[in-house]
């Protein structure tokens, strides 16, 4: 017969052993890092770039992390279910890459305080809930400079999805870039009211081309606009990814999103226990925005100019939205000598001078 004290000892030893085993697993087993994507990964576009980032991070932290992703998750009740399941299944970090996941992620983050949640393009945060985004407009500005130099008709076409601040920043930065080298250039905008409708995007591009545009660009998710430009022998500025395989002659350059370094850093911080609620808004100097290699059609002097301006943006001496910024109605938004604040950028709801189209009425 065992003494009760003996039994207690055994129990304590067992518990200790189990505890040790558990902590050993936690220290040695790679952490699970999870991603939620809005669309299928495909081979170009928004989600594709995030997935490249995921793979880069996996490589950089080899042995320390394993990753998994759920693609094509709609911005609705489904998103909450997916995020909750990932948190429950032992993910240390959950990255969600679309604006509409914000409220669902906030809700789930409160229920899983030990999991770190990171949300791209949103604005809500919490103790274990951070946000990240990239200054897409810096790339847009440089692409606008190239477009302004390359256009002969001085009409530039822009196919865009929805008039939200992020898209308006892009259109305005592109216009300011083009007008900085070609004050006669004007930008015409067509809204497709859809992130993803290749047929409509193509028709919009063809419409702009038939109205005189000889450079087109898009803020939508398919390669249809670059492809349409290629077929009509016009130029295009790509977006999201390097789209040159869809328009080898047409693409002048492209604004590329590069998330790998950010994912590596944020994940390492979480694993090291040094992560704090972050609001990362990185640009060219952080390597989160890059230009695709300039097309063969771009002459050497324009290439040199773009390289110089890129250096200035990285150094912080060139700000695409440095004053004076004047809107379409002639109202000064940012006076000369001042810069637009991040808050003002996030609330952008106007076109600058040089955009020929009008915003849809509210």
């Amino acid at each position, binding site marked *: 017969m065992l003494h009760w004290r003996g039994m207690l000892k055994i129990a304590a030893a067992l518990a200790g052993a189990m505890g040790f085993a558990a902590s050993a697993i936690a220290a040695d087993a790679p952490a699970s890092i999870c991603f939620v994507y809005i669309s299928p990964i495909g081979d170009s576009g928004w989600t594709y770039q995030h997935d490249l980032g995921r793979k880069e991070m996996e490589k950089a932290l080899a042995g320390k992390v394993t990753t998994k992703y759920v693609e094509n998750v709609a911005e609705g009740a489904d998103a909450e279910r997916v995020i909750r399941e990932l948190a429950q299944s032992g993910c240390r970090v959950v990255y969600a890459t679309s604006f509409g996941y914000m409220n669902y992620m906030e809700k789930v983050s409160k229920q899983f305080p030990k999991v770190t949640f990171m949300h791209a393009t949103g604005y809500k945060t919490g103790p274990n809930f951070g946000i990240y985004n990239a200054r897409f407009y810096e790339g847009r500005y440089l692409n606008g400079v190239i477009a302004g130099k390359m256009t002969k008709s001085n009409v530039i076409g822009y196919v865009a999805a929805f008039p939200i601040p992020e898209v308006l920043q892009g259109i305005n930065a592109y216009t300011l870039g083009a007008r900085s080298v070609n004050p006669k250039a004007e930008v*015409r905008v067509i809204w497709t009211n859809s992130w*993803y409708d290749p047929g409509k995007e193509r028709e919009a591009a063809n419409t702009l081309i038939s109205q005189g545009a000889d450079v087109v660009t898009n803020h939508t998710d398919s390669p249809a606009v670059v492809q349409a430009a290629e077929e009509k022998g016009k130029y295009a500025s790509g977006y999201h990814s390097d789209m040159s395989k869809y328009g080898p002659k047409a693409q002048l350059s492209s604004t590329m999103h590069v998330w790998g370094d950010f994912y590596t850093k944020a994940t390492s911080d979480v694993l090291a226990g040094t992560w704090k609620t972050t609001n990362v808004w990185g640009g060219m100097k952080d390597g989160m925005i890059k230009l695709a290699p300039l097309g063969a059609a771009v002459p050497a002097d324009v290439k040199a100019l773009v390289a110089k301006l890129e250096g200035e943006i990285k150094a912080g001496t060139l700000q695409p939205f440095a004053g004076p910024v004047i809107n379409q109605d002639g109202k000064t938004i940012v006076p000369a000598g001042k810069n637009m604040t991040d808050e003002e950028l996030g609330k952008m709801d106007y076109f600058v001078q040089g955009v020929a189209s009008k915003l849809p009425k509210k």
Partner: protein
Amino acid sequence: MQDSIFTAILVATVVAGTPLIIAALGELVTEKSGVLNLGAEGMMAVGAIAGFAAAHHSGSAIVGTLAGMAAGALMALIFAVLTLTLLANQVASGLALSIFGVGLSAFIGKPYESITLPAAATLRIPLLADIPVLGPVLFNQQALVYVSWALYAAIVWFLYRSRPGLVLRAIGESPASAHSIGYPVIRIRYFAAMFGGAMAGMGGAFLSVFYTPLWVEGMVAGRGWIALALVVFATWRPTRVLFGAYLFGGVMIAQLFVQGSGAEIEIPSQFLSSLPYLATIIVLVVISRNVNTIRLNSPASLGQPYRPDA
């Protein structure tokens, strides 16, 4: 300049209307036989990927179009077995076919995502294409645009001028009567459903092989649903389908041109996007107001399962 923009709008309208015409004419024939197949979106999606894959491997747009038709017909065959032989509910089966088709096309399409096809050249008809305005609009288009007109003519002739067409319509009105005088109701409905599938598949192949020569998931983008709405909007008449398709296509294109011209837009473009559906609901309400107009327009046995007694 004004003139050339007008021409450009008309040219684009014809192109945008073509997939709608092809898919809607197919659905029209199916519905005329009394079968309601709501799976057009799915059949178009599968037709699009099958057409794209075949065109890519064979290098021929014709092979691509035929493959799209075959794939669409195969999808319709699944639907026909479920609803005509196993007597499953047509509405539910059709909706399921749509969802299934969109998913299946995405699954098959994975390896084809980075590929583009060479743009198919337009088929220019000598002399006629030189007529101002009408020339480029009617006589310098993609091959399938001409095919859509030929199909329209053939379907009008078939439904209203040929004996098999009369039988098909009789089956749509009263399968029991047609059966009692010896017509194979189920077999003919099989043909009608598969014809509709083949046409939806061709419409899908037009999108992926001619319109935007690339494959991306979800590229049908609701055109199957518009085709379905179009059949109701046209009150089951082929000529109205033709004009309805150009009307729906034209609204979309004109809207883009208005935006691009920088003109002040008073009508939100979201409203214009919803117009086809609104117009369809209005037509439905109008024809449903009295019993006679329904009887005159929609096939009487539409959507009802039929089990021959003997």
